[in-house]
């Protein structure tokens, strides 16, 4: 059985069309995700325009080291994910490289979640959860942290889904249930992973960088 016939799914008669449709589908989904996160970031922007001092003071309270290290971790995971996706598309059979890169991607995703956990612990200890006993007095600082908890939580859910998808892919490829070469599932999963990375690329200056210069 050739690789392509093992990967062909209904309702497609042709593997090339299946591949194109999968790619188109995930891009449409990513466009809707862009709007979802765009709406959250727009809310942040409007609140920041109304409370510039409070957002600067609140931004200074975030731990810039956790934020910067986590950004570097996610950027590196995008490198390994891109390598897995591109290696599966080459004429050479690079199954081992695909497997290693998928495993590294999932591990880097997990590392991000663990670091974020330490950061959440510190935030809770510093009483940075909006509500009674909130640490900062400026009105508007609670809006910043409302955004912080909501958007980093939603991002962590997205990343967890990504880790599950990449781990599943690693498992089925490892057990030879599907071929690695030209497997469209790798490309589609990679595109989702990169979007989760891009969301974080924009969250980094919004959450960690305000108020550092003042």
């Amino acid at each position, binding site marked *: 059985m050739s690789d392509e016939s093992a990967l062909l799914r209904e309702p497609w008669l042709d593997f090339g069309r299946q591949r194109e449709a999968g790619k188109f589908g995930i891009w*449409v989904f990513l*466009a809707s995700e862009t709007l979802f996160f765009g709406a959250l970031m*727009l809310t942040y922007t409007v609140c920041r325009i109304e409370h510039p001092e409070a957002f600067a003071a609140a931004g200074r309270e975030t731990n810039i080291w956790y934020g910067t290290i986590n950004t570097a971790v996610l950027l590196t995971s995008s*490198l390994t994910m891109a390598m897995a996706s*591109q290696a599966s598309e*080459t004429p050479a059979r*690079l199954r081992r490289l695909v497997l290693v890169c998928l495993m590294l991607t999932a591990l880097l995703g997990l590392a991000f979640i663990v670091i974020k956990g330490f950061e959440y612990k510190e935030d809770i200890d510093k009483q940075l959860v909006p509500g009674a006993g909130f640490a900062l007095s400026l009105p508007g600082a609670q809006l910043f942290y409302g955004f912080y908890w909501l958007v980093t939580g939603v991002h962590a859910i997205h990343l967890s889904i990504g880790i599950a998808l990449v781990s599943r892919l690693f498992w089925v490829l490892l057990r030879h249930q599907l071929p690695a070469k030209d497997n469209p599932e790798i490309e589609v999963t990679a595109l989702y992973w990169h979007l989760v*990375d891009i969301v974080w690329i924009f969250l980094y200056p919004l959450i960690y960088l305000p108020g550092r210069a003042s």
Partner: protein
Amino acid sequence: MNRQGESGGIVRRLWARNLLIWAALLALLLLSLVVAYVPMGRMTTASGIIIAGVKSTLVVLLFMQLASAKPLIRIAAISGLVFVIAMFALTFADVLVRI
């Protein structure tokens, strides 16, 4: 042996291309961190967002391979950006004139 050598060349080219993009992304991350501590008023905020824009453009065009994608895929990708721009523009048309 020949085939092995050929696939070794492909792997090296893949790593060389992607490591270069990754190094650029990390350099931009470092730049945004440093610039955030330079007091330039609104320009400090703007530079953080602009650098994030450059970083995500690199990821979209090169890691996600939109630069070499077919027109249909590009339209799907750009549609998300167009609607986000519309959402921001219409909201700012209200918010910014009230200040």
